[in-house]
């Protein structure tokens, strides 16, 4: 058990420190790297409590896909920063402080509610309606409830994501003029008769092709 405790403290320390570093570090790309480190250590914590499926999904979805896109965007911003320095933090008279305070207060109260609910319900695990059995792998037990009891919620969340994705594409899509496209069908179905034109050329006069 000692090794388990030591590993728990190591991973949680890394998680907390890197979460602080995400907000503190000056370089935005470094922030994203710390965010990735945070995700990885949290998935390690998931694995340590026996939720290996959640831990791996966390790695695949957040680290493997979402953080790559973050990094992608932030690196592009950094290119602009090197040019104009508009991205660097500067004192703008403190106009952003009230809004920031409001948002962080809301999040703080939410955290208190979550932790408070946990504190005042110590028999939370016993009061769950689902039996947690230890002899089934947690992938199977998640599948058992996700596709039976919660199938409608699952489907609805999938639908919402799909709508959000299509909406984002529709909102950002701009038709550009002068884009050259290739059609594979057209290229493949081209025959010799259409492509080659044999012309009898007259001496010293040449041939007009476009006519």
């Amino acid at each position, binding site marked *: 058990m000692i090794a388990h405790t030591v590993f728990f403290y190591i991973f949680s320390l890394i998680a907390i420190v890197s979460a602080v570093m995400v907000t503190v570090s000056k*370089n935005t790309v470094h922030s994203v790297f710390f965010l990735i480190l945070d995700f990885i250590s949290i998935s390690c914590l998931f694995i340590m409590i026996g939720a290996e*499926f959640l831990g791996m999904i966390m790695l*695949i979805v957040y680290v493997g896909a979402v953080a790559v896109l973050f990094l992608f965007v932030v690196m592009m911003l950094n290119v602009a920063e090197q040019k104009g320095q508009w991205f660097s933090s500067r004192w703008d008279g403190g106009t952003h402080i009230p809004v920031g305070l409001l948002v962080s207060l809301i999040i703080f109260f939410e955290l208190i509610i979550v932790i408070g609910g946990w504190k005042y319900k110590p028999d939370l695990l016993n009061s769950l309606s689902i039996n947690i059995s230890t002899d089934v792998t947690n992938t199977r037990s998640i599948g058992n409830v996700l596709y039976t009891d919660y199938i409608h919620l699952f489907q609805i969340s999938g639908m919402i994501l799909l709508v959000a994705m299509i909406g984002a594409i529709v909102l950002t899509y701009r038709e550009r003029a002068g884009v050259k496209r290739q059609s594979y069908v057209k290229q493949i179905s081209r025959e010799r008769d259409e492509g080659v034109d044999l012309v009898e050329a007259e001496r010293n006069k040449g041939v007009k092709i476009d006519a």
Partner: protein
Amino acid sequence: MESYFSILLTEVYKILFLLIPVLVSVAMIVWLDRRVWAFVQKRRGPNVVGPFGLFQSLADALKYIFKEIIIPASSNKLVFVLAPVVTMTLALISWAVIPFDEDFVLADINVGILYLFAVSSLGVYGIIMGGWASNSKYPFLGAIRSAAQMVSYEVSIGVIIINVLLCVGSLNLSDIVMAQQNLWFVIPLFPMFVIFFISALAETNRPPFDLPEAEAELVAGYQTEYSGMMYAMFWLGEYANILLMCAMGSVLFLGGWLSPIDIFPFNAIPGPFWLIFKILFLFILFALVKATVPRYRYDQLMKLGWKIFLPFSLFYVVLTSSFLLYFDLLPGK
């Protein structure tokens, strides 16, 4: 504390017993790659150092060790140094879950295939970090390209894995192999095997999908600023990843350590050898593709990944699951 120490020691022995053969075979596989490539092009390839040039990779490694490591002055030095380390580490840690035989695996975890998928999707970070930290145009372009490319092809690999998992009913790699005792999945899922092979080419940045390196336009892409041992580490990580993809293909589709027919001369050969044969077979296919196919254009690559492979493998998921459901073959009941 004594018991902790002894457990730690045996684990370290096991890890070394796995990693040293992997590293040696990576060196050998570079040689094999160059030989196959030369064979296709009617050249001789590396044949001078040692018998058949077998020690060529060792000579190259020695050369890399003695070369100077140059770190560009305007680079982000910490990230620059970390990038090859990340590539190399990620390429090696995934070998922990590959089963070489029944009960002959370093970590027999429940979610082995997810672990493999997660680690191979982390592989993109080595490239992005290297490309960004170099603070130069070509490495950055290479990194951006590879980020988009690897994320796209991971999606189709994920869907292909779902196809296999539907037939197995477990995420454990040993279970996946044992489920193929009667029929290797390459036969019922042959289209998925082909798509997996092509996606693996794209995932490991091999030709014809080597756009992140593209020596003709990007002068080796994200590796441009690297030299000496750091370049060699990128190189080793890349080949270890290729071997890993071959191992993944043989575990998912070619029956892992199982012999093709369960009769005497075949099943007398121990399982690890069969796995190695299958990995080598897939690797030679990789090398033949490299030698014969020209590089894709970037928009064609994206079109192939998103508009052809993804819909087709999704369609195949529906097909596989309805087949299994209709004939009542669903596993895990």
